[in-house]
């Protein structure tokens, strides 16, 4: 783990309101597992705290972060120019743990795709990818995951299945029933909630990546907790024990 001054190689809008930032790290980042994240220092006088972003991709010293503009931090990030520097604290948190299974199911909602991108690539074949978004303008978020030919759901029905990604997944669960498989998910909390409902009966093994407002990203402040079933310490830190949790451990 380290705080690294990275040089911005590109920061392109990949879909309306979504950006992909690529930065060159002067020194290699410590080994990272899919699902880990970074804290980015936004150079803007009005932005005080760092902002957390999943490691979308990291290789040969180049870190990629895919982000959605939702507020002042991401808005000012979107204006970052090629050649400028950003400091990134990385890699942070606990990523996904990968066991050998007959099949893997990766479920992503909207920008949640950024949290499972590196994972999907790691899992490779044996993986079926489900991606849900509001409409077809967000399809570019799939980026280089098209080879997985993902099952797509759009809320407005402008592409693929009309509805949310969990409804779409439910139709395919049948085909997987027999297999020993595991689900990996990242997306808005309500998506994870309905996913939990869907998987409840068979209690399919499932790891999910969660979000929470953060101050430090290092486990120092206890500001970013999620409630779990653990009686003794119900509140776990998303930045330290997470962001990836066993779905069955989290209270949703």
């Amino acid at each position, binding site marked *: 783990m380290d705080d690294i001054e990275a040089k911005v190689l590109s920061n392109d809008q990949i879909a309306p309101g979504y950006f992909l930032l690529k930065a060159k790290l002067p020194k290699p980042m410590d080994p990272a597992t899919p699902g880990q994240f970074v804290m980015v220092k936004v150079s803007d006088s009005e932005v*005080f705290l760092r902002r957390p972003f999943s490691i979308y991709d990291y290789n040969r010293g180049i870190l990629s972060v895919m982000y959605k503009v939702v507020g002042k931090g991401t808005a000012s990030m979107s204006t970052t120019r090629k050649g400028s520097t950003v400091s990134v604290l990385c890699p942070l948190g606990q990523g996904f743990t990968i066991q050998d299974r007959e099949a893997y199911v990766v479920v992503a909602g909207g920008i949640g795709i950024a949290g499972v991108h590196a994972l999907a690539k790691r899992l490779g074949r044996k993986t079926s990818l489900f991606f849900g978004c509001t409409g077809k303008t967000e399809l570019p978020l799939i980026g280089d995951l098209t080879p997985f030919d993902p099952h797509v759901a759009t809320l407005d029905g402008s592409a693929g299945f009309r509805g949310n990604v969990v409804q779409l997944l439910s139709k395919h669960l049948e085909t997987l029933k027999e297999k020993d498989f595991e689900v990996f998910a990242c997306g808005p909390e309500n998506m994870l909630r309905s996913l939990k409902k869907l998987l409840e009966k068979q209690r399919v093994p499932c790891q999910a990546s969660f979000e929470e*407002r953060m*101050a430090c990203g290092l486990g*120092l402040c*206890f*500001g*970013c*907790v999620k409630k779990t079933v653990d009686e003794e*310490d119900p509140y776990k830190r998303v930045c330290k024990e997470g962001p990836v949790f066993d779905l069955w451990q989290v209270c949703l």
Partner: protein
Amino acid sequence: MASLSVKLFGRTLRNPVMNASGTLGYGEEIEPLWGVETLGAYVTKGLSLKPHHGNPVPRVWEERRGLINSIGLQNIGVDRFFNEHFAFFKEKKTPIIVNFFGFTEDEYVACAERIKPDKLIVALEMNLSCPNVKRGGISFGKDPDMVHQIVKLVKAVTPIPLIAKLTPEVKNIREIAQAAFEAGVDGFTLLNTIPSMVVDVEKRSIPIRGGLSGPALRPVALKAVYEISSSLPLPVLGAGGIMNSNDALSFIMAGACAVQVGTATFIDPYTIPKIIKGLGEYLERCRCPRITGIVGAVHG
């Protein structure tokens, strides 16, 4: 090489820079970046007799140049801290200051009683910003009589030096400090966060009510440090918006024998080592042999 070491309650600390309570986890969390042995002393997260789960989220909110938190004093309890974490500081030979709190006098007293003297324990730091549930929830730290009473009770059960950590939300901080002094307190930490809140204009809601920390607090804390250190013969630890070595120097010159850094660590996790380095450089620059030489430098 100029000396940064300071004496506190008869113990020698390698430098006057500490973390502020609750801003460096249980200590191990910062290891991947730098070791707690870098600190003059490690200040524990606020500990209580029984574990506390803390508040629901959101627990942190960004303010322009400030942070508002409502962690709700989540902690594993004083016993588990000593069972599970104290060994770590022993091994690293890092002195600690044990921050603790309660919601009743009995809780404060019982918690203090559990802490056995140890050569690594420099002091107990009592967080007086807690609501006294038996007195309609007003903070202990706001009322001179409550402060006098609680300090007396705690002093009676522990031989360990006792530091009172005060809240800024008081009528007259001198009066509060005086009450603690007369009850036998050994030192002060100034200040804790200022109660504040946020309104979300779009959602028309109050996303968080909590304590304001960071630069916004600095000039207020600086004044408190100056007033107390110049009026009472006790050591004062300064805290509140210290972001760099210049800020640290201003607190030291105002009369703080040591400083605590909190929020700044969240923006730059290397702030504490940088401040320690900066203090050394300042002393070299102005040919000052030791940091103790400039404590209270601005006092008339």
